[in-house]
């Protein structure tokens, strides 16, 4: 498990737009991360993490999975590659998370071709599913 500053080994994003604070690890085809919503979060408004924050949290969970794979393939010292969201589909946000709540997101890889990864994401607060989506991530070489 990686937390706080250690997350920077896996993803290229930096403050104020780091939207994961814990990475639980990755299997061959899945990754899991968490974010505790702070009032100071750049995507927080009136005590809620807005849609953009939820989606960025999902995107960075995917990026962290890619970061783990990158280290496995290219060595422990490999820096995280820049990556971008290519497409989002079927994104349902049931409700916005509130300050103090912890989002836990699991991404499962459904396809990977060259530098494009397609994933399905589920975000929960406790047992409650608050968001699901399909996300396509592009990674630079």
């Amino acid at each position, binding site marked *: 498990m990686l937390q706080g500053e250690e997350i920077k080994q896996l993803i290229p994003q*930096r403050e104020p737009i780091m939207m994961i604070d814990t990475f639980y690890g990755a299997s061959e085809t899945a990754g899991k991360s968490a974010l505790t919503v702070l009032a100071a979060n750049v995507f927080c408004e009136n005590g809620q993490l807005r849609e953009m924050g939820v989606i960025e949290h999902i995107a960075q969970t995917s990026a962290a999975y890619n970061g783990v794979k990158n280290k496995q393939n290219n060595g422990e010292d490999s820096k995280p590659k820049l990556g971008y969201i290519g497409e989002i589909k079927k994104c349902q946000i049931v409700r916005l998370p509130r300050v103090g709540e912890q989002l836990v997101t699991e991404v499962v890889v459904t396809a990977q071709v060259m530098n494009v990864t397609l994933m399905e994401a589920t975000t929960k607060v406790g047992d409650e599913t608050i968001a699901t989506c399909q996300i396509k991530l592009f990674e630079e070489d």
Partner: protein
Amino acid sequence: MLKDDFFTIKGKESSGDGQVTYHVELNADHAIFKGHFPGNPISPGVCNIGMIKACAEEEIGASLFIGNMKQVKFSHLITPTENKELDIELKIDATDSEAIKLVAAIVKDGTKFMDIKAEARKE
């Protein structure tokens, strides 16, 4: 949240077919560009969604919750240096206030940077 901070609205035009175009300008000095990415500022895809949402809120005159994004496609990266000025094209069908249909794109001079099909409701 992003309006008047990450970006500003410079003007708007309506065309006869129900489309409204907002002219916006990015704030290259915003802190988000420091983290996305250090030394290589690129507008995060979610901020592009956020700019569209803010313009739709401006147009409707109410805060929106976008609970259903059917499809969002990002075709070109937006940087605050190369793409400071952008046009946000909106088509909004608010007949059903619980499922406001939003079709929008960010474009400039014939380049489409992203487009979105979504359903929102007023907060």
